[in-house]
């Protein structure tokens, strides 16, 4: 089976999101993490850096929670939210462009 390199990054993200979500403290933070989780694996090569960044942010969130660094955990949660919003908007834009190309064919 041929697997695109970004698939493994997405798979890793899913695992980390699941692990981080368990320890999320404030309800808003849990919601952001779940939102990031719902975005799933990278859908294209262009998405890989953003998904990787998300994965690192989730790692950092988990570490901060384990070490009791609430301030950093809160910052990482906000970073996860911003990255997730951007990823979602980018996907919406990609879909719109794909529809436009379909329409002009």
């Amino acid at each position, binding site marked *: 089976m041929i697997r695109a390199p970004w698939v493994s990054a997405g798979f890793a993200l899913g695992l980390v999101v699941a692990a981080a979500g368990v320890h999320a403290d404030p309800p808003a933070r849990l919601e952001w993490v779940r939102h990031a989780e719902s975005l799933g694996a990278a859908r294209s090569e262009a998405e890989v850096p953003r998904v990787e960044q998300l994965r690192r942010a989730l790692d950092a969130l988990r570490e901060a929670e384990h070490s009791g660094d609430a301030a950093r955990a809160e*910052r*990482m949660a*906000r970073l996860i939210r*911003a990255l997730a919003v951007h990823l979602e908007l980018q996907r919406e*834009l990609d879909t719109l462009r794909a529809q436009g190309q379909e329409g002009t064919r």
Partner: protein
Amino acid sequence: MKVRAAALALVLVGCGGATAPALDPLEGILEAASTSAPSEVAQAREARGRAELARRRGDALAAADEDAIARAWADAALTRAELERERAEADRLAAERTTSELAEARRLAAEQSAQVRTAADAARAATRVELVRALQVAEADEAQPRRARRVSLADPRERARAARAIAEHARLLLVAVESLGGPDETLREQLGQLEVESDVERADAAYRAVRRALGMRRAASGVEPARASWVEALESEGFEVVDSTLGTGAMLDANTPASRCSRLGGLLASYPIGEVLVVGAWSGRAPSRCLSALRLALGERAIRPIAGPEDARRLVLLPAYGAAGVHDDEPSSHPPSVAGAEPVTSE
């Protein structure tokens, strides 16, 4: 030393004062996206504010985290701005497509409509040509001595075709007759017989009878004079239509046979309102016979001769159906004179 430092500072201030301060790239992005993505821009600016505070208190890690957050929001703001712009463009293209599709649909509809009109016009013109041709056959037949009539036109197919065309026109006129006062069983029967036996003479007789009936019903029901109908009737029987200030009618010439005048009389009878004006030099044998044929067809209806120019033209006009007389309740008994035409008191 102090002097040199002061001079260097002046040079630097001078250079700096001449150019604008370097633009913060992130701030440039936020400014550009502030209209399309206000929420994302606000988040980015808040993160920048927090990064600045962290730097002031010497917390490098927090400042770096907040900077990363600010950049992520700035990216999101840019993407949203792009998304909004492309959505607007897609909407514009869709609207353009719809407009263009509508225009194409309208063009096709107009084209089809024009084709239908052309086909209908062609069919009408063909019918008219057919009728005129059939009437010419009938007139030629009528002009023969009585005993020779039935053998004058040897081609039976030609005669049958002419009879059918005349009968068809008579049936159309019967619809108009019946719309002005109910069914006419006599005419129906007369036309019904033509379906069994195609005969030019009988078809023509039925056609004249329908014309007479139409005139009587129009007179009885007080139908408004209709110039268009009068012109159409003249054209459908191959007469040259003429419009003058005295009225609208047909142009004849010195050689017009009496049978043709008789047919014109039949037409005049079906347009019963007002007097009939005959304009031109009606002396001489042929015109007098023509006038007699008209008198015979019109019965008691007034015919007023008007002296006209001394040329071959003879006009038979209906003032009530002319462009000037269409809306008159009662046609004027003193029609305006035209150049070269004078009313005469008697023939």
